């Protein structure tokens, strides 16, 4: 966690929070949908030249925050996923097109029994990074552990699975309580990681200190929380395509330090940069940059019904928005999403007004409102509230967050809102939000594959994430329809209505979809940055 120089992109903080997700947190299009997610823009500022990649070399990656203990069953940070992607492969993975793709499984699961039985066949000849062969029993062990370990962060994602059995040496059968079309996606995340049963038996609860899985790299050491060292695995089935001799992760919380480390060559991959520094690098031919727009979004939560805490009955707090809900629209009209993005985030994010990413197959473009001071003033006048209207905006600490608040304050002032930015330490802010002790809170969400998980937790009565305390029966019934609809097109139709409903400012003003950025030394080729924000180094190496 950053301490002084907390001007990391909001994604870092929200990503960390977001990291504590269920296993299916990978951002990708649902497997059952045929629709492509190609809008996830993977852009390289320098076109990758087709140069020959040498074997050997040390890849050093700067991450902005430290992963937790490297146990796939308990790890819950975004940065942990980046490490796992290179040393702990799962049954499935995410292709560069953003689709689930078999990794340790030999093919997509065979779904039978009306969606209640999944049969997965394993790739043959695979060995864990301690030489133990991969078999169905190992998969059963890992999945059962994910479900039963008390501190498991995967249990809730796997709760629909009632039994896991090895039906052959290489086949595993999963029985579900109810059909769950997101299961393959879930198994493409940390829930699908298979760990070495030998190592598990040896390390027990300390598995996270010495993790052994299947992967192009294997765990070597973690001399401190901020330093993770991996080396090329001799056991990996595709080892011939792995070029780098080692892959190290080092935590650099300060973006300026990250930048100077990249320039001085102390790191050759930077995932820890500030947007403005990435913008600087774009004109530097010694580096290449990549950006993906993710499912993560940021918005402004407005306390309209959370007077006494999320777990108490909804009650309108004493603030202008709760008294006059139309002021939310006025507020939205008073700010410009584009300006926020350009001034604070160097234009890297994607302005938007719904919780669904542009790449989501369920997203329907509805056209966001644009800044319109006259209209905002008219709405305010109609409410009869005298201006300036005092508003306290709680922003998590961090330079960029504070600036976001200042831009919002500066813009909203012209419509008659007197916004006070209150920079608040993150956990304190969360506690305040849960207890309803706030007016407006700038907070985001790391995003989920399934549209429902990007919406329901924030609007369901009594949900811990329903900071706004909003209760909207129309939305609730739409959300039920969305969950029960079976086809993608039917769901898309429902979510189009949902997005429309959400755009009418129920309690959250959505601002933008977050971009993740990566800068690498131009000499390093073959780094794959997938739309879920994960960096794959399996085929990366140095050219000269």
């Amino acid at each position, binding site marked *: 966690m950053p301490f002084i*120089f907390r001007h990391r992109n909001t994604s870092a903080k929200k990503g960390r929070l977001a990291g504590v997700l269920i296993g299916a947190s990978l951002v990708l299009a649902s497997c059952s949908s045929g629709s492509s997610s190609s809008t996830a823009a993977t852009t390289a500022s320098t076109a990758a030249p087709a140069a020959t990649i040498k074997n050997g070399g040390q890849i050093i990656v700067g991450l902005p925050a430290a992963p*937790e203990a490297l146990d796939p069953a308990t790890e819950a940070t975004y940065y942990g996923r980046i490490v796992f992607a290179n040393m702990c492969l799962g049954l499935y993975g995410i292709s560069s097109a953003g689709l689930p793709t078999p990794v340790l499984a030999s093919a997509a699961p065979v779904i039978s029994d009306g969606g209640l039985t999944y049969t997965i066949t394993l790739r043959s000849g695979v060995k864990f990074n301690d030489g133990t062969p991969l078999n169905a029993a190992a998969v059963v062990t890992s999945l059962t552990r994910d479900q039963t370990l008390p*501190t498991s962060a995967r249990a809730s994602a796997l709760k629909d699975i009632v039994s896991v059995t090895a039906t052959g040496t290489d086949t595993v059968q999963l029985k579900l309580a109810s059909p769950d079309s997101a299961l393959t996606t879930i198994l493409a995340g940390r829930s699908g990681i298979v760990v070495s049963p030998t190592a598990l038996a040896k390390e027990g609860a300390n598995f996270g200190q010495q993790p052994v899985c299947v992967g192009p790299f294997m765990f070597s050491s973690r001399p401190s929380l901020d330093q993770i060292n991996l080396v090329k695995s001799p056991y990996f089935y595709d080892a011939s395509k792995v070029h780098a001799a080692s892959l190290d992760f080092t935590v650099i919380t300060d973006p300026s330090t990250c930048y100077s480390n990249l320039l001085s060559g*102390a790191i050759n991959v930077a995932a820890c940069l500030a947007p403005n520094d990435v913008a600087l690098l774009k004109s530097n031919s010694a580096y290449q940059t990549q950006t993906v727009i993710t499912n993560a979004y940021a918005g402004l939560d407005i306390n309209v019904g959370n007077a006494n805490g999320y777990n108490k009955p909804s009650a309108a707090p004493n603030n202008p928005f709760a008294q006059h809900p139309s002021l939310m629209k006025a507020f939205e009209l008073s700010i410009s999403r584009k300006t926020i993005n350009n001034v604070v985030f160097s234009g890297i994010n994607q302005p938007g007004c719904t919780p669904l990413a542009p790449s989501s197959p369920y997203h329907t473009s509805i056209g966001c409102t644009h800044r319109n001071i006259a209209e905002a003033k008219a709405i305010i006048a109609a409410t009869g509230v005298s201006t300036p209207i005092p508003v306290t905006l709680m922003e998590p600490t961090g330079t960029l967050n504070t600036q976001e608040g200042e831009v919002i304050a500066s813009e909203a002032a012209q419509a008659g809102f007197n916004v006070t930015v209150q920079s608040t330490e993150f956990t304190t802010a*969360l506690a305040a939000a849960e207890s309803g002790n706030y007016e407006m809170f700038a907070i985001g969400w790391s995003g989920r594959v399934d549209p429902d998980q990007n919406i329901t937790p924030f609007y369901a009565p009594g949900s811990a994430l329903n900071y706004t305390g909003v209760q909207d029966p129309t939305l609730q019934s739409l959300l039920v329809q969305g969950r029960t609809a079976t086809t993608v097109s039917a769901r898309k139709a429902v979510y189009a209505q949902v997005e429309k409903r959400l755009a009418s400012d129920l309690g959250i003003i959505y601002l933008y979809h977050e971009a993740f950025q990566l800068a690498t030394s131009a000499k390093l080729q073959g780094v794959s940055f997938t739309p879920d924000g994960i960096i794959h180094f399996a085929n990366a190496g140095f050219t000269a």
Partner: protein
Amino acid sequence: MKRYLYRRAGASFITLVLASMVVFAGVRALPGNMAVALSGENGSAAAIAAITKEYGLDKPIVVQYFDWVKQLLSGNLGISPQTGQSVVSEIAQRLPVTIELTLLSIAFGIVVGIPTGIYAALRRGKAADYASNSIAIFGLSIPSFWFGILLILLFSVRSHILPSSGFVSFFSNPLGNLKDMVMPVVVLGSGVAAILMRQMRSGMLETLRSDYVRTARAKGLPERVVIGKHALRNSVTAVVTIIGLQFGVLLSGVAVTEQVFLLPGIGQLTIDSVFQRDYPTLQALALLIAFSYIVINFLVDVAYSYLNPRVRLVGASK
């Protein structure tokens, strides 16, 4: 003397116990608790309950405190929920970095500050005196984080003389280790040097004015002997005290410098733990810092009472 030591040790122990209570209560007074912070954005009730149970957060705070003390006494500081590592090993990994930084900074302060202080005292009222005094005040006035950033800009970004950050162990790469340490030590040590310089200067002046130095001079002892033997020795008590205090200040104040130069020490861990509500780590760290502060204070007092027996007699007359 023995009784004095016992009394002093007893007082230190009480301070430590008080400190442990304050740490414990203070950590829990922070808004947002560990279970919520840990289980994060999608924490299910079950996960929160599991963490709550695992760390005993559902028990009354007094019971939690005594459980913790019991654990402490058996040498077990618990498991850090952020890293899954034992707090002891996490601190053990980081402490050497902070201690190295602290020791080197104090060494830097001594090497730079003491000779300058003596020189300034001997050239009292001359340009050299004002120059060194001004530089010392400069050293006291410069914001350490800013100084650090300026150094990085100059020596790492503009000219690639020194690494901007990072840390390698002295035992695996002594030269690299020292290179990593140069800038942080200059940043931290300049403050120490400034304080020591000023202390040394005023101590020297006082002794130089005293009767016995005058006598020593009158006896015809060479100036070097007068200064080296008499004046210097007499200023040592105060300097020892300052060094001891600075050691404590540095141990707890390195967080910023560690942050700027990315040194994996305990300062940064402390702040991280505050933000992450990592109770076990935070408790252990705060106690460790309090403990080292108290121990250093104790040692300084004892050293002082040996160097200057009058201290012991405070409390003699009513």
